[in-house]
């Protein structure tokens, strides 16, 4: 019975793959083409890198909600780690070499994050990549035993976690009198996007690190 069901599932999944493949080979010409529209509106977007323009301007609303998803996941992880066994979450002493390496690398990674944030306006990079590097620095420090696990975040940490979303919301709402949610005046678009990205980098870095520190790093 079990083997029979497995075979059926594998068969159905293969069928799906084949149907998808077949369908992809028989597609018509595009009816709408967005790359040209992105290029045409790039000048008024405030940045010169197309992906950043889509992410933070044309489709910035998606990104706003996505930042909420990230914070939300951390809330879920907090809610669960609160019920975990009360093993004292403390840093375990790591190998001295790892500690030295972490001490050297972490500041470097913060610099790299800053660079990625800055360069995102006109080249690949931006808040998410920068935040990820920042988080990696946090994970590294944790692995080296230099950073304690987060049992529950204090007020300052909560502020840091929420900052990105709050800045983004404030900028979004500031556009309302000018016409619509997330409307950036052309002259200020570049500055506003950088402001949002700076807030996001900090919060995404903290949140991604928190996803690790609150659950994964909690018990050793």
């Amino acid at each position, binding site marked *: 019975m079990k083997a029979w069901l*497995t075979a059926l*599932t*594998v068969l159905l*999944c*293969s069928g*799906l*793959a084949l149907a*998808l*493949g077949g369908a*992809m*080979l028989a*597609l018509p010409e*595009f009816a709408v*083409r*967005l*790359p040209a529209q*992105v290029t045409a509106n790039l000048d008024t977007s405030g940045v010169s890198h*197309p*992906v950043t*323009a*889509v*992410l933070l301007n*044309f*489709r910035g609303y*998606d*990104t706003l909600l*996505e930042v909420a*998803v*990230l914070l*939300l*996941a*951390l809330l*879920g*992880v907090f809610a*669960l*780690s609160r*019920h*975990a*066994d009360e093993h004292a979450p403390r840093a375990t002493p790591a190998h001295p070499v790892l500690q030295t390496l972490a001490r050297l690398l972490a500041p470097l990674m913060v610099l790299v994050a800053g660079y990625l944030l800055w360069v995102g306006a006109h080249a690949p990079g931006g808040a*998410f990549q920068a935040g990820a590097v920042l988080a990696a620095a946090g994970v590294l420090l944790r692995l080296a035993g230099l950073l304690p696990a987060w049992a529950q975040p204090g007020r300052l940490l909560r502020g840091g976690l929420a900052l990105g979303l709050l800045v983004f919301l404030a900028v979004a709402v500031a556009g309302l009198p000018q016409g619509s949610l997330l409307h950036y005046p052309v002259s200020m678009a570049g500055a506003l996007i950088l402001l949002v990205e700076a807030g996001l980098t900090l919060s*995404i870095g903290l949140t*991604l690190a928190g*996803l*690790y520190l*609150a*659950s*994964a790093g909690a018990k050793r």
Partner: protein
Amino acid sequence: MSAALLYALAGAALFAIGLAGLLLQPHLLRKILAFNILGSGAFLILVGLGQRDGIIDPVPQAMVLTGIVVAIAATALALALARQLLDLTGQMRLPEDRPDTEPADD
């Protein structure tokens, strides 16, 4: 056939592999891996099909960046739940018994 379409086809295969894994693997960690593979497949299709005429399209690329962040958020929540379940039941799999016969714990 463009290279982009080739990657979209690979995405279809990855989606199917992930789907089969999600349905068939009882171990929660593997289910989480399977979900990530399934998601990667869908992302490849989004960008691959969007660029099937050989023109780089930043719109699906931005969507995939959004999707990757959503995926790690879901993965982290799933792992936290799986660890909690491990602490409570000693197992990293969902109990086989019918959910409506599970005893209440209070």
